[in-house]
């Protein structure tokens, strides 16, 4: 509990900045929607006839002219990618930052087992991701109410659940990775989340690259699929949960045996 509280105290500022930035961007997008609704009718047609570009962003399945279609594309990209960045950056630093910041000799010479320290840090990481997603969800809902839309709750809940799972998985994978690192690896975290994002784009473009969807958590957070199927792809999510559990477990085992230099 001490480690958890300590982590939260150290990172609440960065969490607040990320959450507010993402939520604010989403609010601005939603507030722009009424003005764009009329124009969107035409835009949807253009967007739906741009071949692989259309497919990459799932715009062949989404209707830009409806609120939820617009929300799925805009907020899907802002929250999906933005949150994944936050989850990756926070996760990849979680265990390695003590050595990178030369605080490991202080923290790890207290009578707390490495497993408990890792558990406290993991809890803090997942809590931060959850808080970011909750704030973003609140921003989306409130701004939707502001522009007087009748909110399609089922769709919104499905979308945000998928984004949350995407972020939790990204955080868990990076947490596992941070157990083997000794330096801060911001670039690696950013790169990894971008890579996941691009793998999903590729998987959308051609059937041939479809198998790539098994290697990126973005595949089950695809707004177009969720809104057209009105369900989440449970097999992909299960795969993601398994990968997350494996990464976390490996992280714990490695950290317990790690030489602290």
């Amino acid at each position, binding site marked *: 509990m001490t480690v958890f509280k300590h982590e939260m105290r150290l990172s609440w500022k960065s969490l607040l900045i990320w959450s507010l930035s993402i939520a604010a961007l989403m609010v601005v997008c939603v507030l722009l929607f009424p003005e764009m609704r009329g124009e969107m009718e035409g835009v949807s047609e253009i967007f739906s006839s741009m071949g692989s570009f259309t497919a990459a962003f799932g715009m062949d399945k989404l209707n830009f002219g409806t609120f939820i279609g617009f929300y799925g594309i805009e907020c899907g990209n802002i929250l999906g990618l933005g949150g994944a960045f936050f989850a990756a950056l926070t996760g990849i630093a979680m265990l390695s930052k003590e050595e990178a910041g030369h605080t490991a000799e202080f923290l790890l010479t207290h009578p707390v087992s490495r497993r408990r320290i890792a558990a406290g840090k993991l809890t803090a990481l997942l809590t931060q991701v959850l808080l970011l997603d909750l704030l973003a969800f609140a921003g989306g809902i409130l701004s939707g109410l502001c522009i007087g839309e009748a909110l399609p709750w089922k769709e919104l809940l499905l979308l945000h659940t998928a984004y949350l799972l995407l972020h939790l998985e990204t955080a868990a994978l990076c947490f596992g990775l941070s157990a083997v690192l000794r330096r801060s690896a911001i670039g690696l975290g950013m790169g990894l989340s971008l890579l996941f994002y691009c793998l999903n784009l590729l998987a959308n473009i051609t059937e041939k690259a479809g198998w790539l969807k098994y290697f990126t958590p973005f595949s089950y957070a695809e707004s177009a699929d969720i809104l057209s199927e009105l369900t989440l792809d449970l097999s992909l999510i299960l795969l993601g949960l398994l990968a997350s559990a494996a990464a976390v477990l490996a992280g714990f085992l490695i950290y317990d045996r790690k*030489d602290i230099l």
Partner: protein
Amino acid sequence: MHAIEIRGLTKAYGKARGVQSIDLTVESGAFFGFIGPNGAGKSTTIRCLLGLLEPTSGEVRLFGQPVDRRSRAALLRRVGFMPGEAVFHSGLRVREVLQLSANLRGVDCTAEADALCQRLQLDRNKKIEALSLGNRKKVSIVCALQHRPDLYIFDEPTSGLDPLMQRAFFELLQERQAAGATVFLSSHVLSEIQRHCTQAAIIREGRIIACAPVETLARTSARRVSLHGVSQAPDLPGIRDIRPLPDGVSFLYSGGLRPLTAELAALELADLTITEPDLEEIFLHYYADPAPTKGDLAL
């Protein structure tokens, strides 16, 4: 009872030298100095003691119990450690760091922390990043002392502390030792080991080259001879470390006195002093020779 027991400890990692088959025993209640130049393996040894590093081979025991993944957290309850680098999480205030350390130990040591901060003149309301090195060192000291452990381990504790604070620090340690605790400190400053420690080990290039009571380490048949009024040292076997003086010459001499006095009698001396070399000189001697074998105390 041994507070610390190291048997055949070898730790090799990466390009760093690490340590090789180290044996070291520190009795309960001892004030033990661990001397060696930078990079000799002092910190590696200490990190193995604390369970931060896993030995490549050999065994490390604290209070008679082996230090391993399972036992280290429980053993650290009885240890107060001051790292060589006094670095803390930035953004915190001194009182928050002290509180964090106490919380991680699950003990309330507010009263002790208050007393220590007062003695060391440490302002608890300052932010960590606003502190000088010396003041961050003080935070480290309070963290190591506030829970009154049985064993204190310090890695180069005095660097960055002004002389007054060094004195306050050693006074504190002596009080703790008098109350029954064991003190283990590493240093490359010999005078402080000579002044405060009862036992010492010398480490060089990853190996312990001497381990004995400080008096024994300092006791040697060698003498520092300073001649004034002549510029050349006599040509005798057993003379080494010849240094020029403004008005003469000085050297270390180990050997019989008769040949020396015979040589000196023939010289036109203005003045002459013969003293015991201090530990510093003995220490340099250990380092100057190409790796003397362990236990080679005959100087």
